[in-house]
């Protein structure tokens, strides 16, 4: 089933996320990051951070949660089993830090056919609860073989 291109521009309700120190350490360890700035509060403060900073790609945890809200919309028509991750981009306004209380709101930024496949770009705006911008995340997914046929009468 093709994606519903009428949903381009739709923003979905934000998910809340409270950033914990152990979660940041766990994520840093999972990508092999051993630099003390990500693990030790004293090292983080000595480097000018008010608390432990997240490794840059930690923001994907929040964008995936926001994405679940978007992909779960039956109106979108996304079959997640056909999805391949195509591109990923993060624009950082400031690092995510332990103690942050964040909101992550997903939006369908693009849905277009590319040959037999379709491209879906999910854009997630991560802000603090007070509205301070933290990170803009764009994930481009390839939905394999779901583009509408360009010839014939079938929809």
């Amino acid at each position, binding site marked *: 089933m093709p994606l519903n291109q009428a949903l381009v521009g739709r923003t979905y309700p934000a998910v809340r996320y409270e950033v914990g120190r152990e979660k940041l350490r766990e*994520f840093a360890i999972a*990508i*092999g990051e051993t630099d003390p700035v990500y693990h030790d509060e004293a090292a983080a403060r000595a*480097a000018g951070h008010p608390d432990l900073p997240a490794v840059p790609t930690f923001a994907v945890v929040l964008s995936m949660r926001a994405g679940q809200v978007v992909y779960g919309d039956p109106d979108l028509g996304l079959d997640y089993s056909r999805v391949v*991750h*195509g591109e*990923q981009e*993060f624009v950082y306004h400031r*690092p995510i830090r332990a103690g942050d209380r964040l909101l992550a709101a997903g939006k369908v930024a693009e849905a277009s056919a590319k040959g037999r496949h379709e491209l879906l770009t999910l854009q997630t705006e991560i802000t603090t609860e007070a509205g301070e911008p933290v990170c803009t995340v764009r994930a481009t997914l390839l939905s394999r073989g779901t583009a509408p046929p360009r010839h014939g009468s079938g929809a």
Partner: protein
Amino acid sequence: MSPHVDLTRVRPGDTLPEVAETIERLDLIRYAGASGDFNPIHWNDEVAKAVGLPGVIAHGMYSMGIAARMVAGWAGDPAAVKRLKVRFSAMIEPGQTLTAKGEVAEVDGTRVRVRFHAEDEKGERVLSKGEAELEL
């Protein structure tokens, strides 16, 4: 944290210290737990084979995390990283080694643009068209 790179000495063409990781299945299970991405193609061979893969493959974001380690480690500060972008261009399986490589593309005042990629042992690009912008 490693000392900041000396901005006054950064020039286009400078290479970043490479970061290499040999990927084990346990790394993917650990990444699944830490990230919340429990797609079974990253830890269950039967599911991976059923969708046409040779076996489990690494999360694209695991590979990007390793490449981002190279960029942030070179900058010496996660707050210096203003933008990261990659294209996922090939898969990598447990047992293979991923190597992230990058070079300075442009220096504009305190803004530095880095081009990077990550490749497997055969030189195939797992991540391509990597771009990073740093404020040093």
